[in-house]
C-alpha cells in the first residue's frame, strides 16, 4: 500500500537540462560566429546581444566572446538572421561531423 513515504504516490517530474537529449544532434546547420564582426566583441562592451535575445532555446550565452552551446543548439538559424552585422553564418553540419570523425581516426 502506498504510504506517505512513497515518493511515487503521484507523478512529479524534476528539473533536468537536455530533457529531450542532446538536441544539438537535430542540426542540419550550425551557427558560426565571426568575432571580428560581432559588436560586443569588437567594442568589448555588453551591447547588442540580439542573438541571445532571439534564440528560441536559450543556447546563446551572453558574454565577450559570445558562446553558443552546441550540445543543445537546434540550428534554427534565427540568430544568423537577426544579427545586425551579419556576424553569424549557418554552415552545413555534416562537414563538422565528418571532420570530427576524421580527428577520431587520427587519434586511434
Amino acid at each position, binding site marked *: 500500500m*502506498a504510504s506517505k513515504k512513497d515518493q*511515487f*504516490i*503521484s*507523478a*512529479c517530474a*524534476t528539473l*533536468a*537540462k537536455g530533457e529531450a537529449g542532446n538536441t544539438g544532434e537535430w542540426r542540419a546547420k550550425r551557427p558560426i560566429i565571426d568575432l571580428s564582426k560581432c559588436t560586443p566583441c569588437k567594442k568589448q562592451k555588453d551591447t547588442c546581444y540580439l542573438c541571445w535575445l532571439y534564440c528560441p532555446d536559450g543556447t546563446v550565452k551572453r558574454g565577450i566572446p559570445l558562446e553558443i552551446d552546441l550540445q543543445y543548439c537546434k540550428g534554427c538559424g534565427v540568430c544568423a538572421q537577426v544579427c545586425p552585422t551579419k556576424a553569424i553564418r549557418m554552415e552545413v553540419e555534416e562537414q563538422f561531423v565528418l571532420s570530427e570523425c576524421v580527428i577520431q581516426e587520427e587519434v586511434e
Partner: protein
Amino acid sequence: MSKVQIINGNETAAMGAKLCRVQVIAAYPITPQSKIPETLIKYVESGELEAEFIRVESEHSALTVCISASTVGARVFTATAANGLAYMHEQLHWAAGARLPIVMALANRGLGAPWTIFNDMQDSISQRDTGWMQVYCRDNQEIMDSIIMAYKICEQLHVPMMVCFDGYVLSHTVMPVEIPDQKQVDAFLPPYVPHLQVDGPDPININPVMLADPRTNAQGVSCPSYMGFRMRLQETLESAGDVILNVGREFGDVFGRSYECLLWKYRTEGADTILLTMGSLANEASLAVDALREKGWKAGAVALRVFRPFPAATLRQALSDAKHVVIFDKNISYGNEGATCTETKAALFESGLRPTITNYIVGLGGKSITAADLEAATIKSVEQKGQVSTPQWIGVAV
C-alpha cells in the same frame, strides 16, 4: 454534546462538509442536489465556514477546481448527480490518477436520455472503473458519518471517494440525524497534509506525459511508468479495506456509531435465501426479510456499504450459506446485467460456492419499489430455481 436535528440528505451532506472544515468548495447545482451548494454558500457567507466557494459554470470545472485546489494542499468538497457526474467523467479519472483525497456527495439520479430527475444508481455505478472509492448510504445519518469518515480515509490513502445517497428518497426526505460535535470532529479529523509540496524549494512538473516503460531521472533514480503509477492506485485500493474498517471502528469509539464493516447484514444467521441491495433499498429489503421470515422462510439481507473497493472476500463470507441470492440493481450495464450481480458472481467464482443468482432491475428513473415487490421477487426467483439468467425488470407495465 451532539444534538439531533430533523434534516434531509442534502442538508446533512452540507453540514458534514462544514464539520470537516473544508477549505475550497466548487459545486454546480443539479436536481436533486442543489440544496447542497445553497446550504454551503449560506455557511460561508455567514462566516460559519471559512472556505472559498467557487461559483463554477459547470461540473467539469467544479471537479477541476477541486483537483487543483487539492493539489496545492486545500481540503476540498464537491457534490453532484446524474448528468453532472457524467459531465465530470474525464476529471474523475484524473482525480484518482492524481491521487487526491477529494470527497464528493452524490445524490443518485438516473441519466438522460430520456430525461429523469428521479432516483436510480446508474450515475455512480457507471463510474466504478475510475478509481474512486464508493460508499452507499442507507439513511441520512450514514450520509453525515460517511462524509466525516471519507476525509480520514481519503487523506490516508490518497484516493478520492464519492458518498452516494438516493436522490429524493434521502436527499429530500427529512429524518433525525445526530449532529456530531465540532470539537470531536476536529479531534477525529486533523488538518489535511498533502503528499506534494507545490511551494517547496524545488520546482516540480505534476502529472506530466509519461511513457510505457520506467525511466531514470537526472538524479539517477528509476521512476515508474504509466502502468507503474496506475498499479499503485490499484494496490492501494486492494488494501484499502483495512483502513476503511479501522476508521469505521475509530468513528464508533468517538461518536458511538460503529462502521467497522464493509457491508450490512440483516437476519443472515441461518439464512439460505439472501436479498442483496445497496443504499436506501436496504431498508425495504429488511422489511421483506421480516415478511418472509413470518412465512417460515430462512431469509436474510445483505447491503453493500462499500462498493469500491469491491468487498469480494467479505461478500463471499456473507453468502457462504446461501442457496439463493436475489440481487436487486438500481442500475444496469446495458448489454449485460446489473453491476452488483456481475460483481457478486465474479466474487463467488473462486469460492466454489454456487447459489442460484437472480438479478432484478428495479427503480430506474425513480420507479417506486416496495418491500412487497422485493418479497414477491424473492419468492419468484426461488420458484425459477435460478434458471433465468438474464436480468428481470420489476415495475415496467409496458
